[in-house]
């Protein structure tokens, strides 16, 4: 039988499949963080049961941590309490923690791959919807709720129904100034914020194959923004080269065996997908969002749809969205001033993102009207950036290089964009209030964000490189 990659991974993780019940799936790696885990540990305590396989769960503190002065106690009492609870819970239940001050600390979806914890063929879950990031390695990775976090802690399994499979093929080659973030924003703008709900997406095609692991992670990361359960990319030589030698990756004879297995992880030719979409990379320009869901995106030179171009029944939501953004239907964004630039988040905070930005801004200086925050994805990314002198480039440009965490992507810590201000952000969500109450977000690539930092407005990076 011809099988898709999702089916191959699924089939090899079914512990029990009973008619009328969802499948019990075995989970290889479980990541936890401070925000969605405390109630799960409480649940275990109430039931009087331990963590079933403590070595298969790894913890870090990321959502709620400050991004300056991490060596000092957290000022905000509730945040401090939540981070302390994680320390207490992981110690009590025997789970490894990469907490503040640890050289491996960082955003959960950045540290898993860089430590070689994330591997092809795995099932990976975390109480965070951007867990789909790990799909870039040919793993089946998806976000779960806290009740499910408790299930995984208690049994290393989760109950799931087999998802439908969607193939998204990006053919051809990307144009200058267009990067992987633009690919995924483009796809979402075409199929909407709910276009892949119920599906697990496999990304393929020449344009995907040519991407680095970091760039692939950016794409898989935002699968959830079109509603997908997850997204993955079949592993190849790029994947294996990235993993080899990383801290927790298999070594020696184990590596050879693992590699032989990983090479079987692809969708068979003629495997059946429930839906297939094809796009041409050459049609993609640098993208930007104008509304309050990630599906409301467009090419940077385009205009926001006019009211007449929006279907009748969608007009109230469309109008509400543009009212929030204080933007006119039919208008352009190019040339519009911005107040903040945020380069970070599990979507775009890896070393390659920082290098891309540094290459572009070297010798330039930020515009006076913008505040620029660069938040590396992990302590290792931060250390590497310093080793390469990237911190000096940012300093000279007037950017603030902060310490790792989720930061202004969701504004749980102090890193909030003030009400009414516009922020061009490399993160994944432009929801109302996402970056702070009444803050307004334009999602874009690190290059487009860097162009805004230098010019002080929404700019077409292709004219600047």
């Amino acid at each position: 039988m011809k099988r898709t990659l999702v089916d191959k991974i699924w089939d090899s993780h079914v512990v029990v499949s009973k008619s009328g019940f969802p499948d019990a799936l075995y989970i290889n790696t479980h990541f936890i963080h401070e925000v969605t885990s405390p109630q799960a540990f409480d649940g275990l305590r109430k039931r009087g049961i331990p963590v079933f396989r403590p070595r298969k769960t790894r913890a870090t503190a990321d959502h709620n941590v400050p991004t300056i002065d991490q060596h000092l106690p957290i000022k905000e009492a509730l945040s401090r309490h939540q981070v302390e609870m994680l320390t207490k819970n992981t110690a009590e239940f025997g789970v490894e923690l990469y907490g503040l001050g640890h050289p491996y600390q960082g955003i959960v979806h950045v540290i898993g791959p860089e430590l070689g914890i994330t591997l092809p063929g795995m099932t990976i879950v975390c109480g965070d919807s951007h867990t789909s990031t790990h799909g870039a390695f040919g793993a089946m990775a998806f976000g779960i709720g806290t009740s499910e976090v408790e299930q995984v802690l208690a049994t290393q399994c989760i109950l799931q129904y087999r998802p439908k499979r969607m193939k998204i093929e990006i053919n051809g080659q990307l144009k200058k100034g267009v990067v992987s973030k633009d690919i995924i924003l483009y796809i979402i703008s075409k199929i909407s914020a709910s276009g892949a709900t119920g599906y697990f997406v496999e990304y393929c095609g020449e344009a995907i194959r040519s991407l680095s692991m970091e760039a692939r992670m950016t794409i898989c990361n935002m699968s959830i923004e079109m509603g997908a359960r997850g997204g993955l990319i079949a592993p190849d030589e790029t994947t294996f080269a990235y993993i080899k030698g990383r801290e927790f990756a298999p070594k020696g004879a184990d590596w050879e065996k693992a590699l032989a297995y990983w090479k079987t992880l692809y969708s068979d030719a003629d495997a059946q997908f429930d839906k297939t979409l094809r796009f041409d990379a050459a049609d993609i320009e640098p993208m930007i969002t104008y509304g309050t869901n990630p599906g409301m995106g467009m090419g940077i030179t385009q205009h926001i749809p006019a009211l007449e171009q929006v279907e009748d029944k969608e007009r109230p939501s469309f109008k509400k969205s543009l009212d929030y953004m204080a933007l006119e239907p039919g208008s352009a964004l190019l040339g519009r001033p911005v107040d903040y630039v945020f380069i970070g988040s599990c979507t775009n905070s890896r070393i390659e993102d920082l290098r891309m930005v540094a290459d572009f801004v070297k010798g330039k200086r930020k515009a006076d009207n913008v505040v620029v925050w660069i938040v590396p994805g992990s302590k290792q990314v931060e250390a590497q950036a310093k080793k390469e002198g990237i911190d000096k480039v940012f300093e000279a440009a007037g950017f603030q290089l902060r310490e790792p965490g989720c930061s202004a992507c969701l504004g749980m810590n102090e890193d909030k964009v003030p009400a009414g201000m516009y922020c061009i952000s490399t993160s994944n969500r432009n929801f109302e209030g996402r970056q702070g109450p009444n803050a307004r977000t334009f999602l874009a690539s690190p290059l487009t964000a860097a162009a805004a930092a230098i010019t002080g407005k929404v700019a077409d990076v292709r004219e600047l490189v």
Partner: protein
Amino acid sequence: MKKNFQHLISTAVPLPIENIDTDQIIPARFLKATTREGFGENLFRDWRYDADNQPKADFVLNDSRYKGEILVAGKNFGCGSSREHAAWAIADYGFKVVVSSFFADIFKNNALNNFILPIQVSDDFLQQVFSAIEADANAQLEVDLEAQFIKIVATGAQENFDINPYKKACLINGYDDIDYLLSLRQEIEKYEAGREFNF
């Protein structure tokens, strides 16, 4: 305390907005609690209160005409973040059912795990429900989980809804997934013994 759900007749609160994400249901800055209780007071916080924490008169939860245990919302409800706090906030506020023409996956799971019934109806039926509530704020809806239907009491219009049999049994009987998974221990250990690598 075990909860369950079987049958309900109630008035409903209409929220005819599409793509309501979980950041709207409960903004991130209210996710700092370490228990499951008390999230109801911040349900739809930034739509419900202004910057000075005063209720916004034009938001439906501040409109005394509308109340009940059923929330009716536009399509793609619960998209975005996986935060189960969204389901906790909805339950804590007192809703037992959410009706929409489309739900995001993770939210649907989280709702079911908290004994909130997400009912997916057709676009047409959703409009009928909104119209019925607009015509009469006290319009009642009847929900029967066993028979899998939702009815607008005043007009008699009804529609059947899908729910998988396992989750239906959990809701009716008040079981949760951990009870079932814990019963599989032997099978889980057998599975582990058969795998050379952890992938």
